[in-house]
């Protein structure tokens, strides 16, 4: 852990105020220790630290996750799970980077794995998801994740407008086929077909570039 300051006054500082002070600093200097306050809280009580962390990052992490998984329910589940583990497995004691770096990094990994699993599951190899994800199968640079969520975004953008609307209602908002059919005055069957086509389209666009590693799984499975 980093060397901590000697004063207790910071505990009384409002996180929001702290944030704005931080923003006023030059960017290069701002990075090092704007989490000092939360770290102090962890020293006092891990629960308190977790709560502060949750309040501070839950929203933005969800926003980041949804760029990959395009479903708000899944994004929220993903982030909530990370916070639960953060406390239950005492991750806060072992990390060597900032909380922020850890949380974002983990969200991106999990979102990537989720995408991969759904695409793989669609390929029908249920066994595949029980195989561990090795580090080698992850994007090798942090900057590659941006490219991935931008590809997801672009893939959704290329859907025909009506199909995209139906897809987002179903995936992003988590609405049932029947609800969407009611809302748009379509038949449930149409909604179903549109969603299936959209899913296939997205899968086809993403599969080759990002999840080609699963070919190994398929060939290994046959032979």
């Amino acid at each position, binding site marked *: 852990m980093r060397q901590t300051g000697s004063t207790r006054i910071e505990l009384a500082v409002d996180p929001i105020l702290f944030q704005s002070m931080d923003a006023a600093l030059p960017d290069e200097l701002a990075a090092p220790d704007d989490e000092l306050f939360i770290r102090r809280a962890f020293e006092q009580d891990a629960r308190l630290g977790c709560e502060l962390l949750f309040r501070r990052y*839950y*929203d933005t992490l969800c926003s980041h996750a949804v760029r990959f998984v395009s479903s*708000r329910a899944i994004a929220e589940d993903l982030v909530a799970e990370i916070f639960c583990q953060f406390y239950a497995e005492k991750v806060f004691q072992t990390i060597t*980077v900032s909380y922020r770096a850890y949380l974002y*990094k983990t969200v991106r990994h999990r979102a990537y794995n989720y995408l991969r699993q759904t695409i793989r599951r*669609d390929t029908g190899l249920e066994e595949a998801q029980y195989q561990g994800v090795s580090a080698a199968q992850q994007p090798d640079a942090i900057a590659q994740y941006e490219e991935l969520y931008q590809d997801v975004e672009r893939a959704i953008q290329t859907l025909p407008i009506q199909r995209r609307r139906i897809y987002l209602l179903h995936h992003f908002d*988590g609405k049932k086929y029947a609800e969407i059919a009611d809302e748009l005055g379509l038949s449930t069957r149409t909604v179903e077909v549109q969603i299936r086509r959209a899913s296939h389209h997205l899968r086809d666009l993403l599969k080759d570039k990002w999840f080609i590693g699963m070919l190994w799984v398929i060939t290994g499975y046959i032979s």
Partner: protein
Amino acid sequence: MNEHINKQRLFDYFAGKSTALEKKQIDEWSREPAHQEQFYHWLDEWEQAHRQFTTNLPVTFSRYHDFLYAEQSAATNLSTAEETPFRSIRPFGRRTWLLWAVAASVTLLVGLFAFRDQLLTRTYETAYGETRVVNLPDGSAVTLNSNSSLQIPRFSFGKQWLDIPWFGSPTRQVGLTGEALFSVTHTTTNQRFVVNTANAEVVVLGTEFTVFARPRGTKVVLNRGKVEVHYQQPDRQSRQVTMKPGDLLSLTPKGELTHQQMQQPPANPAWTEHRFVFDKTPLTEIVAILAENYGLTAEIADAETGQMTISGAYSAKTADELLRIIAEVLNIDIDRKSDKLILTQKLLQ
């Protein structure tokens, strides 16, 4: 070059507005552990400014709070939390990919087997009243009479180096139903040419001959050269006959053979020029010819009429022309009732 990396650059990058070159620079820059903190710091700032949606923070926070302060049930909570990301939505239908692949291959194999004849042989067919010349890869020519079909192996015709069932044979094999004139070229390797019909095999070296293979029997007329005919007798013994030019060989469906010498072997069968040559041909045979060449069903009113014969060479391109000629020559009435023709003798006035 890393000095160029600033907040604006990264914001553009997060928004997907960077060029490939800029991406590469940022990628290199972000590999350094010291820069990673900076990277996530800006990423967080950017997400704050560009939220995709707003969560119901009070509700989720109180749930998290409950989780934190319910130590004893923490384990169970966590385990359900672990499952949630993959439970709520199933974006793509589960398909058993492998099963489909197996099913498809089996279907393909069965299909290949069921259609092996269509795949391995090429069939030339003529419609009623149509004649057609087919040139074979070895230079031989086959003239098909109407309502006939010729089967030629698609891949293995005359390929001597292949001797695998369906794929090749050292002879040139063709199949015939109907009637055809063969002009067979002689190959330097003395390769045999075999015409397979329902009940006989005509084996040739190089010659010209006509094969007639229809339900009422098989006939072979040899114009030039020498052919062998292999056939099965009624007692199922296989026999062979060697023909000389001008020979006419007739074989009933049961395998009874008649071998006769024609006085004047024609250069070409009449039908190749849409001619019909009759020599005391009874009306009953004319009825058979009508059925074979034009698919017409004809009925003779009485046995006496059936005994009438016709002789001479007539030119007719269509069934109607032929019928008119027959009606005139024999002085009979031909009534057409839908698909059926009724032949009756004209009443004397």
